[in-house]
Structure formats: structure tokens, C-alpha cells
């Protein structure tokens, strides 16, 4: 399943009963096609031999070096994943096209509730999956960079809720046995 440029992968539990991995991948076709479209503009302006302050300013402003700089600095996100380890916590991973990976681990004891929210920006409105974390004023976004559609967020939310319920029942049975 997926949007035009996003795909959802559920890698299942490995080994069974311990870890649940949900991945949302974004296609880089759009990013590459935008870069290809902008490249000719860069080449046109770089081809001018005459060097003058005015021309340098125009080159920087309109295209040319600005585009190349943009291409160098722009590091699109390749995929984001959620690794649910019911006994330990949740690991949120962000993979960039450059190969950089950012991981955030949230212990199970600190997660109060996963929630599906509607976020309103000045130009759009979208669904997001967040975690209510003990001691933090702000919600922790599960998918920080990507904006997967609701049909991709729903199974992740259900898996997170299920892991919370398993944690609670484990705690309750532990209390009963100990008491």
C-alpha cells in the first residue's frame, strides 16, 4: 500500500513476539526529478564568462550557485521506521539519502499514550502520530520528517496501543504474583 511517493512496510516480529517494525519509505524520484529540472538553469548561468558584480548577483539570486548550493544542502529523507520492543520501548529512526541515520529511543515506562492528531498549518492540514511522553510538555512525533497518510499511520498506532496494553497487563500480573 502507499501514496504515489510513499510506501508502508511492516517487517513483522523478529524473533517472533519481541520486536515489531513499521517502515514508511519515501520515493526519491520527485527529489531527483526536481534536481534534474533545476540543473540546466544552473548550467546556463555558470556558462557566462563575463564577471561583473551585477551578473554575479543575478546568478546568485536567480539560479546558478544558489541551485547548486541548494542541491548540496538539501538532504531528503529516504525512510522513517518505528521499532516497537514491548518490553523495552520504542525506537524511532530517520534515514537520510546521504546515509545519515538519526535514532531516538523512548523507554516503555515513559510512554503514556500514542495519539493520532490532526495538525493544522497555515497552508495545509494532515494527520500525525505522536507519543505523549511522561515529563515532556511537547508531544513526540513518531514520523518527524515524513507525513504518511492515515491508512499508514493507523496500523502503527494500533501496534503502539497493543504494546502499551501488553505492558500494562504484564505490570498487573507482576503485581498480582508479587502480592
Amino acid at each position: 500500500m502507499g501514496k504515489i511517493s510513499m510506501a508502508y512496510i511492516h517487517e513483522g516480529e523478529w524473533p517472533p513476539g519481541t520486536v515489531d517494525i513499521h517502515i514508511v519509505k519515501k520515493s526519491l524520484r520527485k527529489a531527483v526529478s526536481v534536481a534534474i529540472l533545476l540543473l540546466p538553469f544552473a548550467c546556463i548561468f555558470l556558462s557566462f564568462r563575463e564577471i561583473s558584480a551585477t551578473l554575479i548577483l543575478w546568478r546568485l539570486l536567480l539560479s546558478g550557485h544558489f541551485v547548486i548550493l541548494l542541491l548540496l544542502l538539501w538532504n531528503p529523507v529516504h525512510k522513517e521506521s518505528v521499532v516497537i520492543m514491548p518490553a523495552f520501548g520504542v525506537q524511532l529512526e530517520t534515514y537520510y539519502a546521504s546515509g545519515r541515520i538519526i535514532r531516538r529511543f523512548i523507554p516503555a515506562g515513559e510512554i503514556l499514550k500514542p495519539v493520532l492528531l490532526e495538525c493544522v498549518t497555515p497552508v495545509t492540514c494532515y494527520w500525525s502520530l505522536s507519543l505523549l511522553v511522561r515529563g515532556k510538555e511537547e508531544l513526540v512525533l513518531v514520523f518527524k520528517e515524513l507525513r504518511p497518510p492515515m491508512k499508514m499511520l493507523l496500523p502503527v498506532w494500533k501496534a503502539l496501543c497493543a504494546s502499551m496494553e501488553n505492558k500494562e497487563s504484564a505490570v498487573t500480573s507482576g503485581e498480582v504474583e508479587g502480592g
Partner: protein
Amino acid sequence: MTGGLKVYYVPWRPFLMQNTFPTFYGTFPIIRTILLREKISLVHGHQAFSTLCHETLMHSRTMGYKVVFTDHSLYGFADAGSIHMNKVLQFTLADVTRAICVSHTSKENTVLRSGLPPEKVFVIPNAVDTAMFKPAQVRLGRDEIVIVVISRLVYRKGADLLVEVIPEVCRLYPNLEMRNCQFSCFFTSYQQGYEMVRFFCYLCPLVRYSAMRVRFIVGGDGPKRVRLEEMREKHSLQDRVEMLGAVPHASVRSVLISGHIFLNSSLTEAFCIAILEAASCGLLTVSTRVGGVPEAYDMIVLAEPDPCDMVHAIRKAISILPNIDPQVMHDRMKNLYNWNDVAKRTEIVYNRALKCSDQSLLERLSRYLSCGAWAGKLFCLVMIIDFLIWRLLELLQPAKDIEEVPDVALPCNQRGERIEEIFHWKTE
């Protein structure tokens, strides 16, 4: 949509009087997204001074939705602000499907300002929550007459009139202690005593008339508050004029039931809900005869927006006060004004709007051309650009890629009460 109502707080920063900065096309993406994801059938905008309302109605018409506009205020024709505002209103209402006004006076004003055909305009007065605004359980005594004023202290609400009226009323009803006075006189002659007795007989009716203490309670805030404070200081009325400042809406009833008379000194009013709230609380209303106020109900003591006439009206109200039963007034309001009735009438307007035929861009542009020699052409250009932006948005983010929001039905318990929260936070 949850339970039939959902509120989007669009994060556009307000820049003047709680209005967003007019961008013409800046709000199109978010408005389009909301209309598509919520499966909207009709768009209803309020307030002529709301830039977001005008932009939303414009974009909605471009997208082919039926739109209804409600005007809540009266505006003039002469000053620069009104001229510009009327032109904007003309632009918005040129292509509106139906319009609603809160009084017949407001309808006349809107039709004249916008050039809208009268048959497209419906009159649906506002109502009042009579369950919330009830008279006091214990009726107030008549030893002291309390006049309540609750309004924004701005020019339009006649705050300058209050500055003239309050001292005059206080002068006419001084806080005389003559009821408790004992006079002792020593007459040197029978003739002198006879003349003094004649004088007191003449004075007695006036004394009885003026022995009533009148006090004012002024709730509200605004730029004219300073003038009222100065008036209070100048005439030493600190013990007779109480300034409450801004009154939260939840506390309005508690302020109203502490008075006998409600004074409204507005210079312009399409339909004054404050009068209905006061009447629902059992207060006798004295108001200026402006706008749609006379249409509210028949038990208002009306006066011209002139200090002398208003003082006369207040004296008349004080004299008829013993004949007023607060509960009877409340019951009358309950029968006359009802929000369910307003909802039914609004639904009729919606049904009429939805039955209207769809129109192409060219048909709609012809309506804008009639707005003026230059303005018409400008309006057409604005709408053409809006149409092009719409097509661009369709290209960048097709409607089928915008997810529709599921309708959430709130579960009801066995007693039929609604349970408000679906997502409950886990608390420690």
C-alpha cells in the same frame, strides 16, 4: 466531523482587530484542504469585517460551492472606511448564493451597500439563551433603582452619550436623606409659618419623586472608559457609578440581575442581543432608537440618541417600573426568541441555496463586471487569478490525494448523555 461540530484554528496571525492580514490568495491552500477533507457541501461566512470570511467565500465560489453570508452590523455610506468596506462587500456578495441579515433594517442596509437583490436576502434575528439568562429568584427592592450598562465602551456604542446622561440622571435623583430628616422650624409669625407650610406642600411631591436613589453599574471596557472615569471624578459620583471593567460573558447574567433597568446607548445597532439578554433577565430596557433595536420587542422605552431624550426616557422607565414583572418579561422572551427556531430558519436558507443551479466561470464573471466601471474589471481579474491558482493547486495536490476525515459518532451512555472525550489521556 465529531458530533456535527469541529473547529479548525487556522494559524494565521491576526494583525488588526482580530482579523487576519488580507492576502487574497494566501488562505486558498488551507481552505481548499479543509473543504475537501471534511466533505463540505455549503460554506457560511459571517461578518463584513472579517478578511478570512471574504477570502473563504471567494475561494469557495471558485471551487463551485454554494455560499451563504450573514451580516451582523450596520455600516454607513459616507466615511472613507465605509466606502471601502462597502466595495469589498459588493465584491463578496456579487456572487453569493444567499444572504442572511439579523433585522429588516439590516437587510435594507445590506441591500443598499452591496447591490444584492432583496429576494436573495433572508431576515433571521438572533435569539437569546433564556435558560441561561433568568431573572433573579429574589426580586430587588425598589428603594434603590439600579441602572445597568454593559457594552464595549467605544464610540459606536454611545459611550459619549453615557458621559452626558449619567450625571444628569444622578442630579435628578439625588441621594436625598429627606425621608429620614426631621425639620424643626421656629416661626416668628403666623404668616411666616403659613408661607413655609405652603412651600413644603409644594416641595413634598418633588421630594417624594426624587427620594428614589438611582445608581449605575457600568460593565465593559474600551477606549472611552477613561471619559467615564473622568465624569465620575468630576461629578463625585464614585458611590453612585460602579465601573466593573470587562465582564466575562459567563458573568453577564449576575451583573444584569443586580439591576432594574438596562440602558443601551448605541449609536448604531443591527440587532442588539444585549437587550434580549437584559429582557430575559427581567430588566426594563431603555435604548436609543437606532437600527434594528425597535424590531427586538415592544417593551423597550426608546429614545433618540440625544442626552435630553435619553434622560426623559430613563425617567419614564423609572415611573413604569412598578408595573414590570421580571418573570412575565422572561417568559415573553422565551416565547419570542429561540435558537432552535433560528436553526430551522437557517436550514431553510441552506436548502434554498443548495437548490440553486451551478454556474460556470463566465456566468459568474458577468456579475462582477456590474460592480463598477473599474472595480468590475478588477474584480474579474481577481477571480480569474483565483481560478488559475485553484487549477494549479489541483495539479500540485489533486483532490483525490487529500484524505477525507471519517465522521466520528460520539458514544452515548444508557441515560443518553453524550460522552465527550474519545481519546482520554492516561493520568498518573
